[in-house]
């Protein structure tokens, strides 16, 4: 098990990733994007120093939510880009064949690729923590909420990273793999929210009584909707009242996406190398 996580592929990936100037540039851009929003928000709230000249806890809480949603958006935007080329990119650079003739197992290669990609996103998250410290400075958000938000990020990175790896393994060309991963991510994070809104409207219009299974399932597939429940218990209660299903949405999210992510990784492991003996299955 140890060799699965501390292995040459992972070491090499770290070495290559952190020696690249693009990595530094990516981190810089990420922090600039977040910094502009946070500092911009504070300047607006304090009317550029001409107004109240302080941030109230309620404003700080809003700032936290803005920051958290912005970071979720960035994660959903960056994760496919980081993972959808890890295998197809090796194939295009003609390094995959050699890697596949080594004694490294397919599982080890796939897991290492996923961990190295996730690690970079973790670095981005860790680097953004000072911005969260501003929220603590002004109050309004508990450390537990921040921990939940970080946990949600981690899980979402794992899930969408697995999807990226899945497409990267199955599709030979990186550009097609990237489009597929972004397509799925956009559908699950945007399209599903739209379908959820339509379904809720339809059920209200048709006066269908709870339990409303379809809107619940659609919501459970949508990261932004599930994410909103982390900030306010009232949102969760309103959701239960609307759908009539009391099973926590966040757990449904974890269960559904855990299954999908594990399935994506399993298929990636199986498809990385050719099945040398088709009769054996």
């Amino acid at each position, binding site marked *: 098990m140890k060799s699965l996580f501390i292995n*040459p592929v992972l070491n090499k990936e770290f070495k290559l990733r952190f020696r690249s100037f693009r990595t530094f540039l990516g981190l810089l851009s990420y922090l600039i994007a977040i910094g502009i929003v946070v500092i911009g928000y504070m300047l607006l709230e304090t009317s550029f120093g001409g107004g109240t000249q302080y941030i109230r806890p309620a404003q700080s809480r809003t700032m936290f939510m803005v920051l958290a949603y912005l970071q979720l958006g960035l994660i959903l935007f960056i994760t496919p880009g980081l993972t959808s080329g890890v295998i197809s990119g090796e194939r295009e650079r003609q390094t995959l064949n050699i890697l596949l003739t080594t004694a490294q197992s397919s599982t080890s290669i796939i897991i290492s690729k996923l961990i190295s990609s996730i690690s970079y996103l973790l670095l981005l998250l860790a680097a953004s923590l000072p911005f969260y410290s501003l929220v603590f400075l002004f109050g309004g958000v508990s450390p537990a909420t921040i921990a939940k938000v970080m946990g949600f990020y981690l899980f979402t990175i794992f899930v969408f990273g697995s999807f990226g790896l899945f497409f990267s393994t199955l599709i030979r060309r990186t550009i097609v793999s990237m489009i597929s991963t972004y397509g799925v991510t956009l559908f699950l994070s945007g399209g599903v929210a739209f379908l959820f809104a339509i379904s809720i409207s339809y059920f209200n219009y048709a006066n269908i009584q709870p339990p409303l299974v379809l809107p619940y399932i659609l919501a459970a597939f949508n990261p932004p909707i599930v994410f909103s429940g982390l900030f306010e218990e009232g949102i969760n209660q309103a959701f239960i009242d609307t759908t009539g299903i009391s099973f926590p949405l966040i757990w449904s999210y974890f269960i559904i996406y855990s299954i999908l992510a594990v399935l994506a990784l399993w298929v990636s492991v199986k498809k990385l190398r050719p099945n040398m003996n088709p009769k054996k299955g």
Partner: protein
Amino acid sequence: MIEINGLTKKYGSFTALDSLTINIGKGIVFGVVGHNGAGKSTAFSILATLLSPTSGTAVINGASVTQEPEKVRKQIGYMPDFFGVYDHLRVNEYLDFYGASYSISARDRAELIPQLLDLVNLTEKENSYVDVLSRGMKQRLCLARSLIHDPEVLILDEPASGLDPRARVEMREILKELKNMGKTILISSHILPELSEMCDQIGVINKGKLVAHGTVADIQHQLQADKVIIVTFYRDVERAISFFEDDPSVSRVTRLENNTIQFQYAGAEESQIKLLKKAILADLPILSFKQLESNLEDVFMEITKGVDLN
């Protein structure tokens, strides 16, 4: 060491490899020759566990390519015809990565890497980034990489392709050294002279089929049923042409420049001596009479031409 039996690879109706059967003993250097697209790389990819065969079997050092690919990977060192390298990785790190991929301990890797770099003459490039090396250096580095786990079998797909003459010679010298080390080597090329010097046996593949195999001498012998003879005369070339055309073993008499003719001769060596004697007795002013040495290039062209016609 390598037993290939009826190995076939089909892509729909296209047959890339057609019932390939070869047995290669331990320590043998086996050269596979064929045009581009003949099926050499397909065969090598299957042996390297990168491609599944449609049918047939291949066993390397007792391990089946289809049943025990993990075992096979530990037995072989594979060098593909086209390969890339990782940017931002130094030469020693490149070898270290692959060494670790075969679970070689860090201490052993530290000992092995300088030895391999020395073998492929890249010691002075130890700390250079891999992506800035020349094509020849990359080829040699890839060869060193394929040797990192000391495999018994080397599968080298066009190791000298795209190299300048000097790099080609360097590569050939390294391969000779590997042969002396007792490695079983399966090597492909579309250029025959490249292989003739270092190979114990040669197989010619055309359109996915093995059309000839054996030692270099065997293959040449197989194809020398019709020898090519060149005769130069002082004068009377017309009379000489009609003289040779009368012999039933002679065919395709052609006049070349400078009172020289060329013909194909189907007779045995004794008859060839008698033919020359008869020509001298007929008072033909012969300046030279020689049998054209067919080289491997001619043999290859001859074999593949035959298959095309069929």
